[in-house]
């Protein structure tokens, strides 16, 4: 069933369109930065953006910071919202269920295909933005005449080796996948509640926007640590030296809690839901 879901994901042109859109945003920003050479003031306009002009190899991290707050969660919400509701309204859900595919396995397969999508999208963005950064912001040439990635400075001012950078980017990818699991779980649950993909996606986005607003609100400080978007940017801590694990651990923990609860709710709802439309 998982193979079937993956085949469905990667045979669908939509998947590639979304990934291309995700890659296009950092590319556009890079072109503007490279042509004008006007860096945003430090602490504004996205993490790492002020640093990439002197440090092209850091551009994948800056690209992550660009797509993570809005673009990536929106696409995950749209796909996850469509996961069950879309099959229901296209009439294919009933044929899967009488094949038979057990309802729990269907939910798990959907979730795994969403993880595959997030991985695919992030890796596409990382690769394109790495190439963009090297091409537009600079390459250092080693004595052997081979183009090597320039040294990257961590947030703490210490040089990160290429191997260290690769490890940290790997950590970033893993963390973002986990962060997006929470979004996927919200949209997937709503997708089992309604037969409208759009409704499910909108519902998930409404939750995320509310959470984003509350995160910045001091009056809501008491519930802030439990908000799904509170630790979204914690992957930035991979680029501190030493790595600051506190928020990363908490962020991952919160996402797993949301995942467990919402997937549980989706399971409870979907297993005895009437498939009729």
């Amino acid at each position, binding site marked *: 069933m998982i193979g079937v879901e993956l085949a*469905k994901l990667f045979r669908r042109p939509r998947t590639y369109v979304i990934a291309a859109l995700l890659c296009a945003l950092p590319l556009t920003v890079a072109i503007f930065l490279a042509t004008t050479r006007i860096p945003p003031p430090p602490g504004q306009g996205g993490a790492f953006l002020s640093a990439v002009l002197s440090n092209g190899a850091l551009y994948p991290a800056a690209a992550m910071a660009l797509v993570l707050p809005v673009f990536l969660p929106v696409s995950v919400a749209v796909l996850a919202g469509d996961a069950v509701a879309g099959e229901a309204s*296209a009439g294919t859900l009933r*044929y899967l269920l009488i094949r038979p595919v057990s309802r729990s396995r269907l939910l798990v397969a959907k979730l795994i295909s969403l993880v595959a999508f997030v991985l695919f999208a992030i890796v596409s963005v990382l690769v394109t933005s790495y190439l963009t950064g090297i091409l537009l912001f600079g390459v250092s040439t080693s004595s052997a005449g081979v183009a090597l990635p320039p040294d990257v400075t961590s947030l703490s001012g210490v040089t990160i080796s290429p191997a260290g950078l690769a490890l940290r980017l790997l950590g970033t990818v893993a963390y973002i996948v986990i962060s997006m699991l929470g979004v996927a779980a919200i949209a997937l649950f709503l997708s089992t509640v309604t037969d409208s993909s759009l409704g499910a996606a909108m519902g998930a986005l409404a939750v995320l926007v509310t959470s984003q607003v509350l995160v910045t609100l001091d009056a809501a400080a008491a519930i802030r640590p439990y908000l799904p978007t509170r630790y979204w940017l914690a992957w930035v801590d991979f680029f501190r030296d030493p790595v600051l694990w506190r928020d990363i651990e908490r962020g991952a923990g919160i996402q797993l809690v949301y995942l467990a609860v919402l997937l549980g709710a989706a399971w409870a709802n979907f297993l005895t839901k*009437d498939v009729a439309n």
Partner: protein
Amino acid sequence: MIITHDLTKRYGRTVAVDSVELEVREGDRYGLLGPNGSGKTTLVRMLLGLVFATRGEIEVLGRPVPKRIQEVLPSIGALVEGPGAYPHLSGRVNLTLFDAAGAGGRRKDRRQRVSDALERVGLAGIDRRPVRNYSLGMRQRLGLAGALLRQPQLLILDEPTNGLDPRGIREIRDLLDELNREGTTVFLSSHLLAEIDAFCTRVGVMDRGRLVLQEDLSSLRAPTGRVTVGSPTPERVVALLDGRVEHRDGEVLTVRHDDPGALNAELVAAGVTVTAIATERRTLEQVVLDATTTSSDRVEAAG
């Protein structure tokens, strides 16, 4: 094969299926007849574990549904309320995905299975066109191919000939006939009386959620105790039979009589020319009209 007891489905205050006692026997060609909205589709969905009953019991292939639905479904092929396929993929890929989704069915034979199923429904020559470009009839055939992928013991088909032209309907009927002769039990639902009349041996009639009639078609079509006689000289027949003629319509007469053979002999002996003679049987239409009360899509003013 299918037994339900007191099966009821309520959506809020609407009762979609009301205390249905369905019985489909092995080898049956069962036709579930009823107008749109009479609860046929909900009943079919309940049999397949897609919709859950409010009350009652279902047993399919000897196992309770939906408790052991996973054991039952591999032996069932079904078409529920129109075919469903991924519109951006070709028919062959759609079938391959559906085949891979379910347990069982070895991966090695998958291509062969898909080809066989496509051939059976008359889609052997389909190309790589996506399903979105298919006609309604082609989609219907594709859905049927999906139902046949695993050589089912029981076929549950909801409006299987929807969107097909008369030749297509005939082809599908021949296919079902062949499958039934090979031992497959066929349960089909339709709002088209002629379709059921032409294919089924057993019929159930649904009216506003209730199964108002369930009988072998042969016993429904019992002789009415009348014989229809065709003669170029009908006034001579009337004179001869004296009061036993119940109805006259041109050269066709309806005569109260049990045995057309004896009647024929009597008429011929009297020198009357007989052009046609047959036992009168009840038509399915008449049976359905007697069993149902009012058309479900009629909206009467509140009394």
